[in-house]
């Protein structure tokens, strides 16, 4: 990693840090690091050939989610709790979820503490990733980015993974899951009100759908049963 920094032109490093144009709660460079890192954690077709046809964090716009979350208290009403009862995805003309719920004083106290802490963790975590990459995480090779993330420096990979998951698979009003690509990739239809499901859809099988027993799935299943008691 040190060698990479040595190879990097000083001007480029300076440019990386000088770019402080804010993108929501993140500076331009911070957003670029988050984009690069989350694309390794949940890759799409351009990030990993194994994901051809399967959108990832980049396509779902997870960086948007993280930026919106860190800056959730800036807009009015704050972007903490999406409204209800319905979106316009399942039979309602109006999207109630697009209108966020006004926070009261008590909720605001908790969320200010949470977000102040998270902003600090992001500033530190992004700097740590940059440092580990010799100055700019975004210019490191994907394999090197993977190695850095796998070391979970300061727990920042774990934090990013949690927020990447939240962005990928939450309702799109929170800023990601763009075009519902996160839900589509896992065959999850998302919110279903006010249409709901029929009794037949609830009770009847949709038909055979064999599980692909690849190495990762087999490993996970083996781990899941490893602590099981015997049957009796």
């Amino acid at each position, binding site marked *: 990693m040190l060698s990479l920094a040595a190879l990097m032109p000083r001007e480029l490093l300076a440019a990386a840090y000088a770019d402080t144009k804010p993108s929501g709660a993140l500076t331009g460079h911070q957003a670029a690091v988050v984009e690069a890192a989350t694309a*390794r*954690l949940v*890759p799409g077709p351009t990030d990993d050939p194994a*994901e051809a046809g399967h959108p990832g964090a980049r396509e779902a716009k997870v960086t948007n989610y993280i930026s919106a979350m860190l800056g959730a208290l800036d807009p009015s009403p704050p972007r903490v*709790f*999406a409204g*209800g*009862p319905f979106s316009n995805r399942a039979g309602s003309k109006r999207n*109630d*979820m697009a209108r966020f719920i006004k926070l*009261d*004083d008590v909720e605001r*106290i*908790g*969320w200010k*503490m*949470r977000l102040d802490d998270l902003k600090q963790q992001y500033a530190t975590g992004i700097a740590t990733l940059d440092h580990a990459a010799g100055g700019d995480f975004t210019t490191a090779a994907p394999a090197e980015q993977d190695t850095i993330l*796998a070391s979970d420096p300061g727990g920042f*990979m*774990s934090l990013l993974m*949690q927020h990447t*998951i*939240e962005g*990928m*698979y*939450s*309702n799109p009003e*929170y800023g990601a899951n763009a075009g519902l690509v*996160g*839900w589509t*990739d*896992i*065959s*999850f239809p*998302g*919110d*279903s*009100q006010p*249409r*709901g*499901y029929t*009794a037949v*859809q*609830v*009770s*009847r099988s949709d*038909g055979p*759908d*064999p*599980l692909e027993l690849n190495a*990762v*799935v087999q490993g*996970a*299943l083996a*781990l*899941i049963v490893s*602590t099981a*008691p*015997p049957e*009796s």
Partner: protein
Amino acid sequence: MAAKRVVVVGSGAGGSMAAMVLADAGFDVTIFEKGRNYFGDLTEATPATQYSNDELKSDRYFTEPDPIIEPRTYRRVGDTEPRVTGVVQAMPQTVGGATVHWDAKTPRFWDIDFKKLSMLGPIPGADVADWPFAYRDIAPLYDEVEQLIGVSGDINQIAPGTLAHAPRTKALPMPPGPSQLSSLKAVAGCAALGLHAFPVPMAINSRSYDGRPACNNCGFCSNYGCPIHARVGALAPLRVALQRGARLRERAWVTRVVHANGRATGVEWLDARGVKHTEPADLVVLGALAIETVRLALMSQLPDPSAQIGRRIMFHWFSFATAIFHSERLHAYRGRSTTHVCDDFADPDFAGARQAAAAAGLPYFRGGTLELGGSSGPLTEAMSYLQVLPAASPGKPFGTAFKQLMRSSILRDRLMGIQMIGEDLPYPTNTVDLDPTVKDYRGLPVARITYSPGAYELAAQTFYLPKLRAIARASGAETTTAIAGVASDQYPIAASDRPDTAHVLGGMSMGTDPATSVTDGDGRMHSLPNVVVADGSGFPTAGAHNPTLTIMATALRNARAWARESG
């Protein structure tokens, strides 16, 4: 003469039921709810609502207290320091209480729950007790509550063993709703093993009822507020209370019951900005859910000559089985969260149970009711994979390996869960008190939970875990496992490192003897008779079934006694 003033602390199952009875009897009732009101006009059958199909909103403590500013602490019996400071047995603090996100299972407790000491006998180390009333006394109140909140089910399909312990004469107001595919798989597994599964009575509309629509099977059920009011719970009695003139104050946190010379005179409360107010009262009803009710009692220094307040907290001792289907998906994201149960393991005379108890040095034990079927949402699923990825994808616990697991959906769309709501005995060593150091955002001491299962719970768990797995296997799943719900010294590997069962009972138990109970047989504090208990903290024993219907029926019974004698 002016109507007597009643303060009800908490707008959930017990508090709302008490408010309904007392407002109907002409009392001047004010309900104080610590949390927010996410509804519109609550005198309507279907008020405007902010609840929605939104997993992230739920994970962001939309209804539960934010643990950053209102944590609890948890330690096991024998620990000196807490193991956890944060989320411990979190329950909604909002208008409607925990019934805004319950999955609305409404089984009745059994005859042996109300007369456990007389009918089953003592257990060493536990304070096994009889309730002040019997099943036959509360049965008509169960009927009333089932009509009020709208319960669906079919008494002709309820297992004979269940009916023997909880006899019924009246049909339920509505037939069962559609059976969930994952529940049907578990039902088949039970049948193959000679066990008796049946559609569980639940307070979810299967047709329009009392001005509210039928459930449309949206799938966001347990842990979510119902977006269409097909499931209301406490909102039904709350609606009647408000129609009868009760007032509701939201974000009004009662921090002290003011008392002197053996009588309460009112309460002190904080508004959303932390400004202190007082409210006079002739009767104070505690319904803040067991842990917060105990916390309020202790913060108020209510007279407690026998040191009984906060003793014998009970959570139910859960065990889980997981069935993973390789051949098909089960789409548990559609429908009510689970639609069937099996009560066989709640019977102390289940085949082999007496012998296993004897081998463990116990006169008997019980498991509990089994909730059959159900799964989780994708956020929960994804976080679960993070636990297995370090082993399943060594060196790179993310990337395409993670996405392959998400697409396989072994822990969501292919998963069928079974959970046993294990009976949890009243132990004097399982307690809630005020944490000596940890404070909340207003500087008030938080609740400290000291809790461990006893030999009874662990022996039952050891006996039933393999049987839970056997049901999963018999249901047709290729991969099965079973696991303890909460970690213990005996089962360190568990689904959770802390109590998180959302069943919270005891701590202010009813009884006849002031030396061993906090309230009398009608929920009045022995030491302060105009302070009464309306929530599950009054339960002398926990039963082996979901408790909310019994909380509401008990509150209905006791509130009528308060109305008679305070009026």
